[in-house]
């Protein structure tokens, strides 16, 4: 029995009401491009990819339907849960590939650091919202503490890639909340000087008997391999050498879809996950790389526009931080694959194969959509 008042047009419209058109279009375009690349790189995974995309889009739709007030109310519990799970990992976690990242909760293995990527900006935005109008230097100290505890736990696992992403997510909230330039600039300058000096002294500090304080052997190895990939052509350097060859040999228009020799002769490692950008650029060339970069730029600009129009401090900070996280993913991944950043396990957003990251990213985009739709919320 169909209700006589049922109007399919209206029903559809209300179904898509939470979705922000521009954001959805850009994400769809990137996912579509990803699927085209995946057909070439790893066709046997298409089925799972389809399922992952379906789950991720549902997540996006649900997140978009949740009003920002509701997000605020779960910020603190989610953060506490995340920290507790991270401590659980440190104590009882499963070790895989030399790192303790997974927690076995009986039915499934979960990676709590993934949850932190969203709940960290949520928590800090919530914190600053509660202090609105009274924000002082002390609050930034508290926020930094809230940030450093989970980041430290994740870095200890060790999972440098995720630790950087979570730290960045938290930092963006601090930045948008008004962290003083006199604190940001010196750090930025020291960072730039430090990195330049590492690059300059690469030969001396990469000798095998030199120990780097605070960093693990494999982390030192990654940085040194980046400085001189030929020092380890069978191991980690192999990835960078092969991916730069793939990108470079793609040329302006690429070798053509399904014709990448690096990809199909199996020289490219992890070609469906972290290094999928190399497949894309080998087969679609500079044109493909620019197309993708433009799509990401559109995504980020749209996010920043949403942040600018957001009505409350909470939603402003959250929208700004989420947008910059998307940027960080894209920049770090493309940077490492093209050989200007060290290899850290960061996927290319909406392109790399991997359900967890896709769901996390779509959750973030869904939250942006929700903030966009509730522009009038609490404006009085």
């Amino acid at each position, binding site marked *: 029995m169909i209700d006589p008042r049922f109007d399919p047009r209206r029903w559809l419209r209300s179904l898509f009401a939470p979705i922000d058109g521009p954001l959805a279009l850009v994400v769809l375009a990137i996912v579509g491009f990803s699927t085209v690349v995946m057909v070439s790189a790893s066709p046997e995974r298409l089925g799972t990819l389809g399922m992952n995309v379906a789950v991720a889009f549902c997540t996006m739709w649900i997140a978009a339907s949740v009003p920002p007030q509701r997000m605020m109310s779960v910020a603190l519990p989610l953060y506490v849960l995340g920290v507790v799970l991270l401590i659980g990992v440190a104590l009882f976690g499963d070790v895989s590939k030399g790192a303790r990242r997974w927690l076995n909760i009986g039915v499934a293995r979960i990676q709590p650091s993934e949850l932190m990527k969203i709940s960290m900006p949520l928590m800090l935005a919530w914190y600053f919202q509660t202090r609105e109008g009274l924000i002082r230097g002390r609050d930034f100290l508290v926020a930094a503490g809230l940030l450093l505890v989970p980041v430290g736990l994740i870095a200890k696992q060790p999972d440098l890639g995720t630790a950087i992403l979570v730290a960045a997510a938290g930092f963006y909230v601090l930045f*948008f909340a008004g962290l003083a330039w006199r604190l940001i600039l010196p750090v930025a300058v020291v960072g730039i000087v430090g990195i330049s000096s590492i690059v300059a002294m690469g030969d001396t500090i990469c000798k095998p008997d030199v120990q780097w304080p605070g960093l693990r052997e494999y982390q030192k190895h990654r940085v040194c391999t980046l400085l001189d990939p030929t020092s380890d052509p069978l191991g980690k350097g192999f990835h960078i050498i092969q991916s*730069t060859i793939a990108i*470079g040999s793609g040329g302006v228009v690429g070798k053509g879809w399904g014709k990448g020799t690096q990809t199909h*002769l199996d020289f490219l490692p992890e070609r469906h996950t972290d290094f999928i950008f190399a497949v894309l*650029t080998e087969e679609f060339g500079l044109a493909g790389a620019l197309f993708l*970069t433009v799509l990401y*730029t559109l995504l980020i600009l749209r996010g920043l526009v949403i942040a600018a129009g957001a009505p409350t401090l909470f939603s402003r900070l959250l929208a700004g931080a989420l947008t910059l996280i998307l940027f960080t993913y894209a920049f770090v991944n493309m940077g490492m694959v093209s050989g*200007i950043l060290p290899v850290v396990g960061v996927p290319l957003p909406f392109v790399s194969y991997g359900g967890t990251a896709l769901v996390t990213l779509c959750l973030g985009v869904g939250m942006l959509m929700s903030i966009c739709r509730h522009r009038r919320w609490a404006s009085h």
Partner: protein
Amino acid sequence: MGEMRTPEQELSRFRGRLVVAGVVGVICFLLLVARFVYLQVVRYDYYATRAEDNRISLVPIVPNRGVIMDSNGTVLARNYSAYTLEVTPSKVPDLEATIEELSKLVDIQPKDRRRLKKLMEETKSFESLPLRNRLTDEEVARFVAQRYRFPGVELKARLFRDYPLGNFASHVLGYIGRITDRDLARIEENDDSANYRGTNYIGKSGLEKSYERELHGQTGFEEVEVDSGGRALRALRRIPATPGNNLILSMDLKLQEVAEKAFGNRRGSLVAIEPGTGAVLAMVSVPTFDPNLFVDGISPQDWEDLNNSPNHPMINRALNGAYPPGSTFKPFMALAALANGKRVASQAYPDPGYFEFGGHRFRDDVPGGHGAVDLPRSIAVSCDTYYYRLANDMGIDMIASYMGQFGFGSRSGIDLDGESSGILPSPEWKRRRFKRPEQQKWFGGETISIGIGQGYNAYTPLQLAHATATLASGGVMYRPHLVRYIVDARDGTKRPVAAQPIKQIPIKPEHLEAVRRGMIMVNKPGGTGASVFASAPYVVAGKTGTAQVFSLKGGKYQAGRVAERLRDHALYIAFAPADKPTIALAILVENGGFGATSAAPIARQVLDYYLLGKLPGAPAPELKSVEQAAADGHAPGEEPHGD
């Protein structure tokens, strides 16, 4: 920050920062685009050539695998070089026809074809796969002359693993085999993929597996310039491989041989340990298998035979067979009683031939009993009644906690993978082991059987030997280890495998002395092992044991074999010379009947060789039949009892 601002000021500052973020983001992306332009436009020619040249530019050089030797330098596992005929399926237009043509030059058996087919299913098509191993010189010559006819088929010199002793000590050595997907996953897990590029074999069991890291070595590589046909033109750069390290075992091959032969055709296990170091002198699990069968991929027929044999030759009984210790448990029980003040060594208890508990008679094997029995004599004559009463007096918790100290029920930490932990029964264990509440309850009667090494007790021969060695060294426990030295393949330096004591169990000298006296009396007139060690020129502290098979829960013996497989397991533990022990051992003979008649004679041969250098004459006497065993006053299926 610090000063108060109006919401309008806040908002405009926020928007300012959004602009900053947008600008920085765009600059970063432009940086990336600049990098892409550099790679794809400026250096396009260079990378295009690199990609073109990439096919076979980096060739791994597989390191020689380390050699395994016994304590005297006899080689137990080595490598030899031979030619193999390899096929890269993706480069061969018609595989069937090619193999057909090849078979006219080289002998290719159906089993070679089957193996290639299996390998092709397991690997990617651009890998080079072996079609025939160990070509004769004549076959090599014939193929080389006609090589041009076979694109994608190559002759390669490869190293093969060889176990010159065949069946001897095969459980200790283990074997290597082709790397499977599961091995690959583990290699990746350990971040070793680079080092295994080019390696086809990996340790699958025994020392070959547990010392894989030492034996494998460091892969080298060669950058080779190749023409369009894939032929190497010249080497550009070469980093040689570092061979794997050699292992020198503490195992004495001759002792191992004496021990293995002493078992005759029986099933069982022997572990001999040097008490002061934990060095394993011999580790026997019989029947054995030939590890050479596995190296090139075992044929399905051989695999079936090994796996379906009722004798289970693939199981390392020393590590993974869990057996009730029977009366060999008694010296440890005696020590527990003394340490906890439950017994005084000199006090004798009457033995009427049974112990009554809860209206049930636990019987001794001598119907009238042994008369008045003190602690040393209870060991010498293996008096069950003494230990029934003792177990009851001590209670299960005290027994379990004391026995746990000797390593019963926990892994010894030996340098082999996959050791079983056995079962040290306790109420706590029972709660974990069983699901239903009525099964989880511990009964007092169960404690009584535990006292004579029966009931749920189940330990590996290694645990038994480990505990005996700990007893022999006065309570100092060492981690058992088979490898004595790791020899660096580059400079020949010997790195000893440390013999650090794990712990010291506090034992009073007088308590140790009482137990030792009992164990010496075992092999003197009146003791259970007297006939075997008559006229031995050294003094042995030992203990015989017989473990009931019938009372074992969940036995999966086939109906037709019940009679033979129902026979008791025979056990013997010993250390010698009793005053200054240099060897401690545990022996188990499956379904061997009495410990004194089938396990102790093996100990005599091993000790004669180890202490006197005397080689045995005839193998140990054959098994008695079940009927005879029953006529000796012992029938299977009664209450648990000792010797």
